[in-house]
């Protein structure tokens, strides 16, 4: 008979059941929140997308720390947060949501993941707590009438597409020069990648250029056939709508088939240092769109380095990632969240706000270039103007070229073609509304705010 050492397994079994009891009781937070505003973070610091996660959540936490240390919170209300690892997987994101949703004083959810964001839309609408999907998420969630609690701040995928086409137009000497030209869009084989297929077709008809959209199967660590097809199609420009390992491999394979890197334009998720450094020399001259410029020379960055990292509270392990694209995106996201809370506090008082109050704050978030400069973020990002029915807030974009070591801004702030995009967004949003029988919200309803602290269903 196999001699099985029963003691350790017994020991492990008891440890297991003890720990189980801890989780079953669930986490009931009794402590009375002494005027704190809480940010639950579904972060991912592991797995294929760790670079994005560590940078973004590092920047966000750094900014919250800055506000706490420098200003003692927002009008005296201290900012707190808790992280739950999701490894960018939807069900882990949902588990962290279930675990933290009963925490008092939640301001907003910031998952930075398309999959988790989709899984949360019904849940946060029911909880009346805003869900922020900066630069990504559902394009039609821009329409505040149908998605009251979802905010694709600064840039939704359609605006990004329109801005890229505008940029390529200017490079060719004007939008009319687009006529007759050939464009290829290389997209990641996932819902995120497929989101912009319709808009590229539409813009192609509008400006008279031809577009060929080629899919790269996940994870995209081998793109020989895609780039040989591109080589034969001989397009003027290739738009890279990539994610993760697919980006450096695309740039390297482009070099391999002799396609010039400076004719590749990266989208907002193919624009970070981690996307280009693995490609080494091949990435020189590669241009990518961004809503936030990279670099640490901006006043708000300097303050973070001085006060937060000075006090040893900096979240980034690798100091020379300060000022990287993801880090700055986290900081900008921090600015927008904090300013929304500040705006809401002006109306509802300097205290812990409910989710619906913060939602009101986001729907009145107006940061013109002057206010942005006051926040020490001049040239970091342009401006934002969120209204109750436009949850994107008309963010401006700029383009950066990689010189082998760092990103350099090569264009001034460009505005996407909002007028053209709005009807398309509204059509898709109303279709969603009918499918889920949601009535469209009116301006008046947007003003009504639920001010009693909300506890999700027990």
């Amino acid at each position, binding site marked *: 008979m196999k001699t099985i050492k029963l003691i350790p397994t017994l020991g492990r079994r008891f440890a297991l059941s003890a720990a189980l009891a801890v989780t079953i009781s669930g986490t009931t937070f009794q402590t009375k929140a002494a005027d704190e505003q809480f940010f639950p973070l579904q972060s991912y610091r592991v797995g294929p997308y760790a670079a994005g996660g560590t940078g973004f959540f590092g920047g966000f936490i750094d900014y919250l720390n800055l506000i706490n240390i420098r200003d003692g919170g927002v009008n005296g209300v201290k900012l707190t947060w808790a992280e739950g690892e999701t490894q960018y997987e939807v069900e882990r994101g949902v588990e962290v949501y279930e675990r933290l949703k009963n925490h008092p004083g939640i301001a907003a959810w910031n998952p930075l993941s398309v999959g988790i964001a989709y899984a949360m839309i019904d849940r946060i609408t029911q909880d009346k707590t805003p869900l922020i999907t900066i630069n990504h998420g559902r394009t039609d969630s821009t329409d505040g009438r149908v998605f009251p609690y979802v905010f694709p701040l600064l840039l939704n995928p359609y605006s990004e597409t329109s801005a890229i086409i505008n940029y390529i137009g200017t490079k060719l000497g004007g939008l009319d020069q687009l006529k007759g030209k050939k464009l290829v869009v290389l997209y990641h084989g996932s819902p995120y990648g497929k989101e912009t297929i319709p808009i590229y077709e539409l813009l192609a008809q509008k400006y008279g250029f031809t577009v060929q959209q080629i899919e790269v199967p996940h994870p995209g*660590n081998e793109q020989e*056939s895609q780039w040989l097809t591109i080589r034969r199609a001989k397009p003027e420009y290739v738009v890279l709508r990539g994610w993760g*390992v697919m980006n450096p491999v695309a740039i390297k394979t482009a070099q391999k088939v002799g396609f010039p890197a400076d004719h590749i334009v990266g989208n907002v998720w193919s624009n970070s240092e981690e996307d280009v450094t*693995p*490609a080494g020399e091949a990435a020189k001259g590669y241009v990518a769109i961004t809503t936030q410029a990279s670099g640490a020379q901006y006043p708000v960055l300097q303050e973070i380095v001085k006060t937060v990292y000075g006090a040893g509270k900096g979240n980034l392990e*690798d100091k020379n990632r300060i000022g990287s694209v993801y880090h700055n995106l986290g900081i900008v996201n921090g600015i927008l969240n904090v300013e929304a809370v500040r705006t809401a506090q002006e109306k509802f008082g300097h205290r812990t706000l409910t989710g619906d109050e913060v939602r009101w704050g986001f729907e009145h978030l107006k940061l013109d270039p002057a206010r942005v400069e006051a926040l020490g973020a001049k040239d970091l990002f342009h401006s934002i103007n969120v209204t109750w029915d436009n949850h994107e807030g008309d963010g401006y974009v700029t383009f950066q070229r990689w010189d082998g070591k760092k990103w350099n801004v090569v264009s001034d702030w460009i505005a996407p073609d909002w007028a053209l995009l709005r009807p398309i967004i509204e059509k898709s949003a109303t279709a969603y509304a009918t499918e889920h029988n949601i009535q469209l919200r009116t301006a008046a309803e947007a003003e009504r705010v639920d001010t009693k602290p909300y506890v999700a269903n027990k």
Partner: protein
Amino acid sequence: MPDFDPLFFAEVLVGGLLAGVMYSLVAIGFVLIYKTSRVLNFAQGSMVLLAALTFVSLLERGVPFWASLLLALAAMVLLGLAIERTVLRPLVNKPPITLFMATLGLSYVIEGVAQLVWGTQVHGLDLGIDDKPFEVGGILISKFDLVAAGIAAAMVALLTGFFRYTRIGLAFRAAADDQFAAFAVGLRLTRIWATAWVAAGVVALVAGLLWGARLGVQFSLSFVVLKALPVLVLGGFDSIIGAIVGGLIIGAGEKLSEVYIGPFFGGGIESWFAYVIALVFLLVRPAGLFGQQLVESA
């Protein structure tokens, strides 16, 4: 159907063949272990990741190129010995499927260790082989791929020489043929298996460097195992020649199908089409092209 242009076809074919060589590099690691111990080592992908991550992390900490190469090599040797000792030996007489599942667990362990020790950042890796293509008869060929093909060819020559002409190589082949007979004859099987795992570790390092130079050294490097499996199924799990030929067929087949048949399906068919190619061959020869045909008997 895009107009058929022979020059382009040749280019896709050559590109496919060279890509196939990169798959073979990984597949050879599988074959080494399967050949001697009938274990399909699913952890080969994570060994490729660990090897490349160790090398590039040492390089970035200022260790010179050759020193970090040797240290990474040493790490893979130690890993090979440790695996044989802790995982393989206790499971020695278990059915092959149990061992296969043990390597599934092993791949999680190695991925965990690699990221715990060296962190989860993305690293660039420059081997000094630039990737500028050059034109041969109107066909663009990448210098990097040729060097990779050269390294693969050298490795195959080295391995076949090792198997054919050295004593330990002979012991390998004996163990591969019939473990019990080898054991009965007095060959110390555990030493053979350990050497097999060490050799697979070395192959993993070579594959890790070449794939890492192309992909960047990061977590997704371990997905490369999924590229090697159809090659093994086609070439046979226990034949090095099969790994090379299988790699070439899958590489070329994958690329040609993506370029010429892909458009009908809307593109992106590479990930599963390689398995279809392998399956078609398999239904003809159930143990792969060069795999040892198992004579069915009660």
